[in-house]
């Protein structure tokens, strides 16, 4: 008799270990040490969430009841991995290029980014996955109970006790912590994936250990076990029913492709498409190993344990019966691993779908102009995702309580498989058939789903729970050919095969027929072409027409969804690709396309499309795009692609030339103004000096004079002389910097000290309005190796500018530091009016002033800052879309500089 407390301690310790693994992986990923996280082996092991507690415990039970039939569950995925590799490759490629976040997103994206379809698939996935989560909870509860039960012959009480609750709560917490760290569902959850991989090793090792013990410890070697199998009355009578075998294999293959959790690990979490190559042989190997000892364990269990012992628990009860408690613990941990990893990944996958395809569309509809004005979208999505995780796990628990945990493990799993397989026709059709339409997909999925509910899912609760017993026996209203288990009068079939046959056939027929009968919308055609020819010609159709929208507005929206630094990096990259400097690319169709894809990585294709459409104002599909879709001739495609590349190059050059020309024109005007400016700046203080020195000279000549006046006039002369000197200093400084004659005084320091110093210096001697400065000292703890005096000069200038030009009633300056990568960035953001778009690239020129502001200064400060940053190997730029005026200083990080 094993103490349950010990079991609880082991469980808790194991979970703590998983937390540590996930946490370490997240840390390693954050620090950029991802080499071993990106290994194809981790990917392969993560695929093993296909083998849940159902396969861990249930396969042995299955073998004990139905012989070798359990192999079909492994045969399906193996066939897919080996025989349909090219199809998988295409699926994965599309998933990555289109930034697909889930199976629902895939279907919706293919069929014209339809929100309705996405929501439908999501509902289907939730309904299909719930029984499966219940199954995992049940397996953990049963296995705990098996330890408490001294006599394996007694039926294990299906005790829906505290165990299931605790497991559910613990899993929800783990998943919320590690599954919603970043919003972009397309980014890998390194922690989760690593934990899953570790669990995959644990379950394989546990099952192999039990198998080795059974074969060599009990039976006495490989030869002996074969004899026992031959002799076993249950297993020797192999019943191989061809139809059922084919049906089950097909079902397992379909589920392997369509299960939300499989899609999550196979497509969404994939780092590198080449990993699929390794997985295509390594995953079947894993499956082979895990199924190797199933039959021996079943045989020994049937022999050694009294009749009536639950075969689903042989993996546990056989070691227990032979007094091997350590081995039993290991087996328990294996089963526990299998159960928890499935629930975690399924919850992540479903929560992404629910938040992207149900919560976000509703939220968008409620806040009509939402995309551009209202609050933080990231917050909404995050919250939706966390709540959905809790909701999904709770649903699983609820199903477990309702169904009473009575049915054999394998049966529930197969029901879930059949449900989720309804997505298959629309998915495969969408990948390979251009003629597939949204209406077809919807009709097929809805029809198949309804039939599955009626013929399999609802009856599975037992007579009179959902469907009345009379309906089950005689059909609705006494119509015999509508009986759930004997549709259209076909009797005698296994209920599962019966349901799969009918639901998938009707599904496929509806899908084909409606697709042929309906006409796809332009967007569906475009998406269809992109999906079907995914591995062929790159690029292809474009759906946005640029122009109407302000890039700055897009940036405001993108920052809310992607987060400021990702959005800024994206805009900067795109601007550079267009040959422009700064952060604002032109709103070209290509750029909108890229932006939409990035957004869809966070909120799904349909939602991203709707948000962008709100801002850009509807999409247009041009005649050329449709022609490109219709055009099948590879030669013409290639030719036009080449032309397009040339044209793109020309457009790029033209854009650069235009920008250079505009800048030259402006510069020439400015050069002309330069002499004027310099004359003005020098003459103004000189005027005061001359006038007052003449006054002083003549004082007393014609009458008495006031000594106070004399002192004041002298101090005016003094101040103006200093102003002149400062101006000359600035001019000389600038000239030295521009000619590159400056020698840098490189020292070490920390960013926070430098900002302290700059804030103090900028505050001294100024009596302007009180400027409140907001800082995050934690983020500023960054080491610097640079010319600290020069960098400080830049900071002082920026702070002083905010003091002078920020016209807010309560002026405030936010200084925000960021580092970690190759660059250190420091943003200075005030809450004033900001700088108009057309002046943003002029402010760094000499004597540039915004509008008519004359708040002292000669207009050389930012020009000097720009030169200094260039000398220090960094940049300073205006950062649009931040509310007020915002400047970003970028500096190479310590390592980069030290390496030079």
């Amino acid at each position, binding site marked *: 008799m094993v103490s349950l407390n010990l079991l609880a301690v082991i469980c808790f310790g194991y979970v703590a270990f998983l937390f540590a693994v996930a946490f370490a992986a997240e840390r390693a990923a954050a620090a950029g040490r991802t080499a071993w996280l990106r290994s194809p082996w981790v990917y392969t092991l993560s695929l093993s969430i296909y083998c849940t507690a159902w396969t861990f415990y249930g396969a042995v039970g299955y073998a004990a009841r139905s012989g070798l039939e359990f192999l079909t569950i492994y045969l399906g995925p193996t066939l897919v991995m080996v025989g349909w590799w090219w199809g998988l490759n295409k699926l994965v490629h599309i998933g990555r290029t289109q930034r697909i976040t889930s199976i629902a997103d895939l279907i919706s994206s293919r069929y014209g980014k339809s929100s309705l379809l996405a929501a439908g698939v999501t509902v289907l996935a939730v309904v299909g996955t719930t029984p499966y989560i219940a199954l995992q909870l049940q397996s953990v509860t049963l296995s705990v109970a098996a330890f408490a039960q001294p006599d394996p012959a007694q039926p294990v009480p299906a005790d829906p006790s505290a165990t299931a609750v605790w497991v559910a709560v613990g899993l929800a917490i783990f998943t919320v912590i590690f599954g919603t760290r970043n919003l972009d569902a397309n980014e890998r959850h390194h922690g989760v994936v690593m934990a899953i991989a570790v669990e995959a090793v644990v379950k394989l090792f546990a099952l192999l250990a039990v198998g080795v013990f059974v074969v060599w410890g009990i039976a006495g070697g490989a030869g002996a076990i074969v004899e026992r199998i031959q002799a076993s009355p249950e297993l020797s009578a192999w019943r191989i029913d061809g139809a059922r075998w084919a049906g089950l294999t097909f079902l397992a293959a379909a589920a392997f492709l369509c299960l939300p959790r499989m899609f999550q690990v196979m497509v969404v979490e994939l780092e590198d498409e080449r990993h699929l190559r390794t997985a295509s042989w390594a995953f079947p190997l894993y499956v082979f190993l895990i199924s190797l000892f199933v039959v021996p364990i079943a045989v020994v269990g049937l022999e050694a344990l009294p009749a009536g012992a639950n075969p689903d628990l042989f993996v546990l009860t056989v070691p227990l019966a032979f007094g091997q408690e350590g081995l039993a613990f290991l087996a328990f941990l294996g089963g526990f691993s299998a159960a928890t990893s499935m629930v975690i990944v399924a919850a992540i996958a479903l929560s992404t779908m629910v938040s992207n395809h149900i919560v976000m569309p509703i939220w968008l509809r409620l806040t009509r102009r939402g995309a551009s004005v209202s609050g933080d979208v990231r917050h909404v999505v995050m919250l939706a995702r966390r709540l959905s995780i809790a909701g999904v796990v709770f649903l699983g628990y609820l199903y477990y309580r309702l169904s009473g945990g009575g049915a054999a493990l394998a049966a529930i799993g197969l029901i879930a498989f059949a449900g989720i397989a309804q997505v298959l026709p629309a998915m495969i059709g969408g990948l390979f058939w251009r003629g597939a339409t949204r209406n077809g997909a919807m009709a097929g999925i809805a029809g198949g789903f309804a039939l599955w509910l009626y013929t399999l899912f609802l009856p599975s609760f037992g007579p009179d729970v959902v469907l009345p017993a009379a309906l089950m026996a005689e059909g609705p209203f006494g119509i015999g050919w509508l009986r759930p288990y004997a549709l259209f009068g076909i009797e005698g079939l296994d209920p599962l095969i019966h349901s799969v046959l009918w639901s998938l056939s009707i599904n496929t027929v509806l899908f084909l027929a409606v697709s042929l009968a309906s006409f796809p919308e332009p967007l569906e055609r475009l998406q269809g072409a992109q999906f079907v020819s995914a591995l062929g010609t790159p690029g292809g159709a474009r759906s946005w027409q640029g122009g109407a929208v302000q890039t700055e507005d897009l940036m405001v929206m993108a920052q809310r969804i992607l987060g400021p630094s990702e959005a800024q990096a994206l805009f900067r990259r795109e601007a550079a690709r267009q040959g422009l400097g700064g952060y604002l690319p032109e709103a070209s169709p290509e750029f909108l396309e890229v932006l939409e894809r990035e957004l869809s990585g966070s909120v799904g294709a349909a939602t991203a499309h709707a948000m962008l459409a709100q801002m850009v104002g509807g999409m247009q599909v041009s005649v050329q795009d449709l022609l490109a879709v219709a055009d099948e001739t590879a030669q013409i495609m290639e030719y036009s692609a080449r032309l397009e590349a040339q044209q793109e190059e020309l457009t790029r050059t033209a854009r650069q030339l235009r920008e250079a020309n505009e800048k030259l024109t402006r510069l020439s005007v400015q050069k002309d103004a330069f002499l004027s400016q310099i*004359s003005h700046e020098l003459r*103004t203080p000189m005027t005061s000096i001359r*006038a007052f020195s003449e006054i002083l000279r003549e004082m007393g000549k014609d009458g008495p004079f006031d000594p106070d006046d004399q002192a004041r006039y002298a101090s005016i002369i003094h101040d103006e002389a200093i102003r002149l000197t400062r101006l000359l200093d600035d001019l000389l400084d600038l000239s030295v910097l521009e000619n590159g004659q400056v020698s840098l005084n490189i020292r070490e320091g920390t960013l926070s000290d430098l900002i302290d110093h700059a804030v103090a210096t900028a505050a001294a001697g100024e009596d302007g309005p009180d400027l409140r400065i907001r800082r995050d000292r934690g983020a500023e703890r960054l080491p610097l190796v640079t010319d600290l005096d020069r960098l400080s000069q830049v900071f002082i200038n920026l702070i002083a500018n905010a003091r002078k030009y920020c016209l807010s009633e309560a002026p405030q300056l936010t200084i925000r530091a960021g580092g970690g990568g190759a660059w250190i960035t420091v943003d200075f953001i005030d809450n004033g009016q900001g700088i108009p778009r057309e002046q943003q690239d002029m402010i760094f020129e000499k004597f540039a002033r915004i509008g008519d502001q004359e708040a002292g200064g000669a207009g050389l400060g930012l020009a000097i800052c720009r030169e200094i940053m260039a000398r220090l190997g960094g940049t300073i730029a205006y950062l649009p879309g931040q509310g007020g005026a915002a400047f970003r200083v970028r500096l190479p990080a310590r390592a980069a500089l030290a390496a030079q």
Partner: protein
Amino acid sequence: MGKHVLVIEDEPNIVEAIRFILHRDGWRVDTHSDGATALEALRAQRPDVVILDVMLPGRSGFEILRELRSEDGLANLPVLMLTARGQAKDRETAERAGVSRYMTKPFSNAEVLAAVREMAGP
């Protein structure tokens, strides 16, 4: 009763210097530092002489002068333009706009005084 001069100039030290020079000579001196509202001040005050800077906040001295010359009551008002921009084309611009006298900064106090006296007439 001294004659009235309006100084339109935004640099406070220069304003103070001119005020001192003219005040000592018995002038009534008013000042205005904003280009945008300079014309309204002129209409309201009707000075005998105006001293006008070129680079003013809100509106340039050239524009003020041009508009002033096209107004009935102000067309003949004597205007002394002071500018820190010393280029020849600035002088031309000022003359085309109808300036009475044109001086570059820095100026000699005596010259300013002489010019203002002369423009105000007997």
